[in-house]
């Protein structure tokens, strides 16, 4: 969907919400709205798209109590605000909108969580991602380094950028709105999405991208929506294998989970944000054992998280069961950069080539 189409769709669906309320009140009825229930009990696996989405449980919000009425009032103010933004072709961050709401009197937000949640509601109701509302998150996007060329629409016109030749040592920064990017061409065999900056820098410094024609993406911990959207688009547009390379602990497996399957908070956008074809590269618990990596003992919270993952449908495969049980048995975890104990080249010369060959990538 083009940028213009997306904006048009946003405008139409938001105005439809307001119109419905107008008609309800005109008919002497209390305005109300139906929203999908946003809990983990209403998350379902969609076989067709292979991602996790909201189910069909809905809850009705009727302006018959002060709390619900205030919620609808806030929604009306946000719709009015987005309408004005789209009309004037301006954009703002979620945080800016939170501050703008200071002037909305009774409709002002108490905390930023509240405004974020409301925007997510509007995304679900309109089936338009927030970029279509000209709202973007403040977290800056992660970076990309590798043999690919994109065209980006910037304030200073269209720019074509090669993500090795035209960028600095840190790579190309993914913008907030990935929809503004056009994928031109590439010369890559695969994409490695890396959790930590240290490992991302190590691979660039060791020339891994050139040697193996790899695109490196820095996830910066739990990846932002724009980063996940970028991976999704690279997978869809170029059909490149996406490999996720993280630390070897339960929290990192969740990073992989959100890249591959989506997160509860954004389950309504899973088709756009999740990359079901993404594969987990490492660091696997068996790597800790096989390479005898420096490690730490699992904490109580780690063990709890691992056990929770054993019952998580997203990790309900033989592969994950085996690895997680092994980790619980060893009671150890390691960081990506623990490979440095075997020399700075070990990860690019030994571990990754072996692992990639093993996975059938090279």
């Amino acid at each position: 969907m083009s940028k213009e189409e997306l904006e048009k769709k946003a405008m139409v669906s938001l105005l439809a919400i307001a119109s419905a309320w107008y008609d309800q009140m005109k008919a002497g009825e209390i305005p109300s709205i139906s929203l999908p229930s946003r809990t983990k009990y209403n998350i379902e696996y969609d076989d067709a798209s292979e991602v996790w989405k909201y189910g069909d449980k809905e809850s009705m919000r009727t302006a018959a109590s002060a709390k619900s009425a205030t919620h609808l009032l806030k929604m009306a103010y946000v719709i009015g605000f987005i309408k004005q933004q789209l009309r004037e072709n301006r954009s703002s961050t979620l945080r800016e909108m939170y501050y703008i709401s200071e002037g909305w009197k009774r409709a002002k937000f108490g905390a930023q969580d509240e405004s974020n949640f409301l925007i997510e509601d509007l995304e679900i109701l309109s089936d338009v991602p927030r970029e279509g509302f000209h709202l973007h998150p403040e977290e800056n996007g992660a970076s990309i380094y590798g043999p690919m060329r994109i065209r980006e629409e910037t304030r200073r016109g269209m720019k074509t950028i090669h993500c090795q030749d035209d960028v600095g040592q840190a790579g190309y920064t993914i913008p907030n709105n990935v929809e503004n990017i056009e994928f031109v061409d590439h010369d890559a065999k695969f994409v490695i999405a890396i959790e930590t900056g240290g490992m991302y820098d190590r691979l660039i410094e060791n020339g891994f991208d050139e040697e193996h024609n790899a695109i490196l993406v820095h996830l910066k911990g739990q990846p932002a929506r724009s980063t996940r959207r970028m991976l999704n688009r690279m997978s869809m547009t170029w059909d490149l294998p996406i490999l996720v390379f993280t630390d070897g602990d339960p929290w990192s497996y969740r990073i992989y989970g959100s890249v591959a399957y989506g997160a509860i908070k954004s389950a309504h956008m899973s088709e756009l944000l999740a990359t079901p074809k993404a594969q987990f590269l490492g660091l696997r618990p068996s790597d800790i054992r096989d390479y005898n990596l420096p490690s730490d003992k699992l904490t109580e919270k780690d063990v709890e998280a691992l056990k929770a993952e054993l019952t998580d449908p997203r990790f309900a495969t033989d592969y994950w069961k085996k690895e997680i049980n092994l980790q619980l048995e060893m009671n150890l975890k390691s960081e990506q950069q623990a490979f440095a104990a075997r020399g700075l080249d070990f990860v690019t010369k030994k571990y990754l080539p072996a692992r990639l060959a093993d996975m059938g990538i090279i």
Partner: protein
Amino acid sequence: MPGWLHLVLADELAKQQRSISVAEFFEKNKHLLGFDSPTRGVITTIKEAVDNSLDACEEAQVLPDIFISIKKTGSDLFRIIVEDNGPGIVPKQIPFVFGKLLYGSRFHQIRQTRGQQGIGISAAVLYAQLTSGLPTIVISRTGAKEQAHRFEIQIKIETNEPDVLKNEAIEWDRIHGTRVQIEFKSTMAAKKKLIEYLKYTSVVNPHARFRVELDDETFTFERVSQEVIRCPVAIQPHPHGIELGQFKRMAAASDAKLIDFLVEGFSRVGKKTAQEMCDRARLKGTLKVSGLSADQQKALLAAMQEVAVPAPPTTQCLSPIGEELIRRGLDKEFQMDFVAARTRPSSVFSGHPFMVEAAIGYGGKLPAEGNAVILRFANRVPLMYQQGACTITECIMNVNWRSYNISQQGLPAGPVLILVHVASTNVPFTSESKDAIASIPEIEKEIVLALQDLGRELKTFLSRRDRNKLAEDRARAVCAIIPEISAKVSEIVEKPPVDTSPIEGKLMRKLIAKKWTRDGKVTIELANYSGFEGEISAYDISADNAADAVPKADFVSEVDGQFTKVWKMTIPSKSNWQVTYSGKGGGILDIRGIDDSKKMVVDLDV
């Protein structure tokens, strides 16, 4: 060990053994009487002096006016003065009251009093003497015709006898009363507790006025009742409540025959009962009671326990505060949304009459979080320490407060105040410091019953309040927020504003009064969906004088800058009435002449 050695040792030991005086004993066991720390000493001293003053005023049937002063006189020296308008003490008695431990007028009396053993104030005198070395100064006057006397007193520790350092007749502006001045080493670390003590004392003595001078601060706890409380009348001991020691003293002091001794010396014992007791003890009723042997005494005492005797009379010897006065006392010191009080019928444990009173307060200025505020009282004296060891606390924890919609974690929590007062001729304290009441099944039962009764009453209040809250919440949504949604939505869809009053009418079926302020104009609008068409009046109380009101108010009055404007009108069904005037709004709007359930007032500016 050979036998002779025993003898020698016993001899040696006997030389070292000597009787220790009560005063000496106290010096080594201060904690038993509430003087375990310097901070606590201040509270105990004031408590003992105030107890005495209140008891004295009660006996003399005067409304207590008590002045309390605490002043720092040295780096760690504090001077405490307690002055009352009681009957005063005759000069001859003063040295004994203040200068001899265990000298009391009420020790052998069976009625409800605050002080009992006569330890309290003399213990404070001793404590002062031990820490500061200063004598206690007492001024007392018994009437207009008598002169006031000023004493400087200490206690002879070895003999527990008063030591009068100075005694002079002086001029004193009070006609009758007593003033005690005690100076000892202490700190004011417990200032908060002290103020709490005074506040609580004032709650259960609503007939008393306390004026307090704390360093440079002065404040007053006013009386809310002008009624002098009835002084409890002493009764004879009950045969089921007597112990061997007391029995022996009574027997030794009597020259009556056994039957007469029983009938006259004990309550609820008639000739028939007395005869039954004698028969059971296998004693002749004509024996002189003073001539009984120790074994005979024991047999008689046992027989007295076995024979059924009606419970002792309870009303004359006890002095409950009363539900109304407890409510007024609490109202005065704690501003709360709800207060209820119960005075249980009197009852008896081990032959001692007792009575339980309780009260529950909710909301208002009570702290919303944390454990309930607990006020424990025994014979109108607040119990300030050892809350955890007290049976009152135990009983409060044993009540299931959740069933009255109060959260509970052991103790009930939230904006709740619980007061329990146990009045008895013999309050069973856990120790001599009189901080906690011992666990006695009869007393516990009464406390729990009183609390459950009050809990039910509180629950009714809470659910009524919640219902009102829900209705108010709905009214707010419909009358204040939906019009705003309407305004915003109409602006977004670029259509003429929707009138939301049909929604109000449909939902509320009430007379809806709204008040709002825009651009310096106050508007009051009444929309009648109630079906009621009689005359009603709108009372609008605020700082605005509404001189330019259209329509003009039917009546305006002013008190302290607050104007009460009244409009009278009849509003036909499904139509509106409106008034506008210049002003800042705020204040209170009330509609009268229509049933509460048929009206709803909404302030749109809130």
